[in-house]
């Protein structure tokens, strides 16, 4: 992780955007730098900075050029980066547990994925719930997490013909990616389950389930539990399960729960 500083590129995204690009690959170490720069910029509240968008391998900073010029902003970011270079400690990551019902109508393509991969449906589920996935970034639709780390054994090429309407909460696999649809949208992933959890709840004090840099861990629930949780979410009483881990150390879970839908941060 020590050669990234020499590869940083500053790119132009119109008169309002600066792209700080670290690489053109998907890699957890690079994403950790993205996370750190984003945190620094958000903490500093620099005048003229509009907002900061972390992605897989770059940070885009939107700014008001009438308040801060591009050279000023670039210098400022360079200074932060030289600080991060000496920053040894990685930030702890939040792990958010997402309960998923994989059975019957909730996972219409589970049988197909099992046949394609030569596994039994319950083996697909076991692998899918076997580890936390890094949230590299959010995009596509509000709250939609781009996850990394799907076990290779359950990777399946995307569907050639996208479904035009996929219900919110549908959990899918497409290529080496997995995740869940946060609002009803079209999509090409194979649908293996559904979660009652809302990735995006505009009326909640914490409207988004996860942030870039968090981890998301799917857990299996029955269809009865699915409806119990759904009712609890509607009533505002559901307690989201959350734990913390140091990056790169997925064994050291520090379990805790935090109310996602009813307690302000």
């Amino acid at each position, binding site marked *: 992780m020590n050669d990234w500083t020499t590869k940083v590129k500053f790119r132009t995204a119109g008169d309002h955007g600066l*792209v700080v690009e670290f690489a053109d690959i998907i890699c957890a170490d690079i994403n950790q730098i993205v996370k750190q720069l984003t945190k620094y910029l958000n903490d500093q509240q620099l005048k003229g900075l509009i907002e900061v968008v972390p992605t897989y391998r770059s940070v885009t900073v939107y700014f008001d050029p009438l308040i801060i010029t591009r050279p000023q902003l670039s210098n400022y970011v360079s200074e932060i980066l030289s600080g991060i270079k000496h920053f040894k400690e990685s930030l702890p990551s939040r792990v958010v547990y997402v309960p998923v019902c994989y059975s019957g109508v909730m996972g219409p393509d589970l049988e197909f994925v099992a046949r394609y991969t030569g596994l039994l449906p319950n083996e697909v589920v076991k692998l899918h719930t076997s580890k936390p996935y890094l949230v590299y970034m959010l995009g596509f639709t509000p709250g939609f997490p781009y996850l990394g780390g799907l076990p290779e054994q359950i990777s399946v090429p995307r569907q050639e013909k996208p479904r035009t309407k996929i219900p919110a909460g549908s959990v899918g696999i497409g290529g080496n990616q997995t995740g869940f649809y946060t609002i009803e949208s079209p999509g090409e992933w194979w649908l293996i389950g559904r979660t009652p959890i809302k990735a995006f709840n505009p009326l909640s004090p914490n*409207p988004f389930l996860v942030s870039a840099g968090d981890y998301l861990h799917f857990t299996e629930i029955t269809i009865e539990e699915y409806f119990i949780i759904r009712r609890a979410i509607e009533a505002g009483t559901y307690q989201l399960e959350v734990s913390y881990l140091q990056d790169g150390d997925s064994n050291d879970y520090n379990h805790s729960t935090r109310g996602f839908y009813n307690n302000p941060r």
Partner: protein
Amino acid sequence: MITTIQQGVFTTIQDEGRWGYQAYGMPIAGAMDRYAYRVSNMLVGNSSNAAVMEMTAVGGVFKFDSDNIAAICGADMQATLNGKPIHNWSSFLVPKNSELKFGQAQAGYRCYFSIRGGIDVPKVLGSRATCSRAVVGGHEGRALRQGDVLRIGRDIFYEVHPHIMDSQYVPLYADQIELRVILGPQENMFSDKAINILFTSSYKITEKSDRLGYSLKGPKVFPIGKADIVSDAMCKGAIQIAANGLPFIMGADHQTTGGFAKIGWVIWGDLPKLGQARPGDVVRFKPVTEDAAVEVLRNEQHCYAKIVEMCNVNRQK
């Protein structure tokens, strides 16, 4: 209160937009034509982020149950108040029980209708802007429908009298527009020849254009290698080149990240002009320096200061 008698083709509540949540995949939304939106608020003395109606192509019919001051700016939709024509780019009195009717856009594409106090819908993540794709903001997260009733808010900044905007502040909408562009962030994925094609060709805005963005038809601009990139951020004005080699310009309801190369970015100062372009209109791109782009923004700010001075009765000399 305002009652929707007819909703028009696509009428939404908009403001400055929902800034600050792109990191969570939330589009900014907000008015497609920032200039007409802001001037409509200035004409009625609203504070700067007040919500207005944005009507597209064909406007609606609305009824009022109280006396108000309202304004219309942007596309000329031949508005009439109780059958009497209303001057576009003006503020006017709307008496109780009157009916305001909008027709088809004669020039431009989007008309902004503001009312003193703003339209009072609940703020979602700090904004009243509708993003219908995400079912967020505005009136129930969607375009208006017949029968929808809207409350009037209290986003008032200064006192006004009915006023017709000085013609020097009224833009003319043409069916051929020139958009100034700053190259990047992935301009290095295109050959000089490809970039030259972008800047010397005419593109037609297709029917598949809406608040999400403008899909263009014309000479293709292919990248040197693959068209896709490791997804990165984008917002209003980004010119993405999809796998088919055709440019797509992001609108207000843009996706916050995208997986295709962005050859360039329309300058902020030209986004209002783009917001008034309609399907079938012709777009040409022209490279500009960043300094020139910032100068355009500075001039726009200067116009706003002048317009507020003209509209605010307490600051008139």
